[in-house]
């Protein structure tokens, strides 16, 4: 591939964003009728819908006697990527993302309140333009809140990388394929705890600090937007009752 410069001299990226900006977010809650909680999450061109069933009677035997068990399934629709490839739900990347989501929410949801019950999370990717893992985690957070499942705090995730000497936030597909260091950070914004850090490629020590800070700032920004959306959604719900 010809040496595509990821950052133009004035500091703008390929899609016109500056290095510390996230893609446009567009979210809705309560999209599906039959699910207990559902959300539609759009970050740039990555579009995801999440449905949550639960906590309900656990069907399989692996129900835990003292807390709820969380099951997650991640599926990509065949028209999600540019070239059409039928991806079954059982390939490696799908499993990897679903376990990541499962672990993130096992530490967040107050599962001890529902012994011997089960929470099912179903993530469906409608269109993918990079940043799938972080978008999925944010979408599941919204769906959990819509389902009224008690949680310690939001789970906000953001990806960051280090290309051509500067740290960039919230990567799209092309930046992800650029081969730079790809870091995914998910945190509890208010309690301040870090839930998971995934970094695949090697990065010098000092660079790591700046990439981490960029990811942290990204998560905070996303948290602010998520909260904004939840408040707006709650106000809509209550508006009928309030105005009376």
């Amino acid at each position, binding site marked *: 591939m010809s040496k595509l410069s990821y950052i133009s001299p004035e500091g703008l990226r390929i899609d016109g964003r500056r290095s510390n900006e996230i893609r446009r977010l567009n979210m809705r809650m309560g999209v599906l*009728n039959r699910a207990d909680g559902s959300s539609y999450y759009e970050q740039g061109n990555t579009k995801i819908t999440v*449905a949550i069933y639960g906590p309900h009677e656990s069907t399989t035997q692996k129900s835990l006697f003292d807390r709820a068990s969380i099951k997650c399934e991640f599926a990509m*629709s*065949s028209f999600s990527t540019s*070239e059409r490839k039928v991806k079954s739900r059982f390939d490696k990347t799908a499993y990897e993302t679903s376990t990541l989501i499962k672990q993130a929410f096992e530490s967040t949801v107050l599962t001890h309140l529902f012994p011997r019950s089960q929470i*099912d999370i179903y993530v469906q990717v409608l*269109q993918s333009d990079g940043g799938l893992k972080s978008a999925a985690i944010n979408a599941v957070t919204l769906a959990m809140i819509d389902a009224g499942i008690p949680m310690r705090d939001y789970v906000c995730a953001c990806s960051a990388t280090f290309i051509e000497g500067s740290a960039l936030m919230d990567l799209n597909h092309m930046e992800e394929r650029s081969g730079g260091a790809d870091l995914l950070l998910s945190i509890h914004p208010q309690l301040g705890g870090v839930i998971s850090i995934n970094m695949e490629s090697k990065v010098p020590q000092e660079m790591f600090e700046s990439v981490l800070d960029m990811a942290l700032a990204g998560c905070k920004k996303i948290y602010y937007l998520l909260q904004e959306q939840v408040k707006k959604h709650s106000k809509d719900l209550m508006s009928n009752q309030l105005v009376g």
Partner: protein
Amino acid sequence: MVIQSLSPSEIYFIQQGVENNLRNDGRTRLDYRPFELDIGEISHAVGSSRIILADTHILVGIKADISAPDPLTPNKGSLTFSVDCCPSASPEYEGKGADYINIELAKQLERVMKDSNSMDLGGLCIMPGKYCWNLYIDAIVLDSGGNLFDALSIGVRAALANTRLPTIRITQGEYSTVDFEVSDDPEAMQSLDIDGVPINVTLTTIGNQFVVDCSGEEEQCMDARMTIGVNKRGNICGIQKGGVAGIDAHTINQMILAAKQVGSEILKTMDNVLKDHHIATK
């Protein structure tokens, strides 16, 4: 909530309701629930549509690529259908659960849309024998509230209406190689003629009456189901019966007549909606 399974008395109540032509939600036997249709929502796809029929929520995306045509039909493009009931529709579709339903839905669509040569596949051919368009029509069932067959076919027809294929110019290169350029300016887009594309009308027998567009709970007390493809010219483009019970010959003729009637009604209303969408998105 797990798929509602009904108690015998509820099933009896619904059957009585269908008997004197007043269903639980007030509809008569041949009434369709109001549904919402939106087209052109997925930017990656050449054509897409979204249909919400009460609780059923389906998203259809069409992608296209160019390849050598099937040697048996050198001057025709190809259509491939695939349906994916994702578990968000109901926990039952998790893991392998949805395989049979997906195949049945996809095969029914193929039988109605493809075998009845409703689409002029010749239009999809760029150069007979050498290059033609292959359309991959993928549907996702996000939420299932009964009557998947009809909603799917309406969604696919709307998505086909919304399809815009870049025009291709063929230039005769030297020593008989052929090169062609893809022009992607939005104006010179080639759209498909969906006039002949049929839609499904599913009639379900409950007791000894038959109903159209049955909801999730009515499907629980279904004896038999007949899905009939109808196109604008009033021809029958594909019939498939489902469900356990049998149907006697006389009812079948009536069902086909009713399907023709309801089908043409839906097609008429659908085409005006597509026209305004077309004007809106111009």
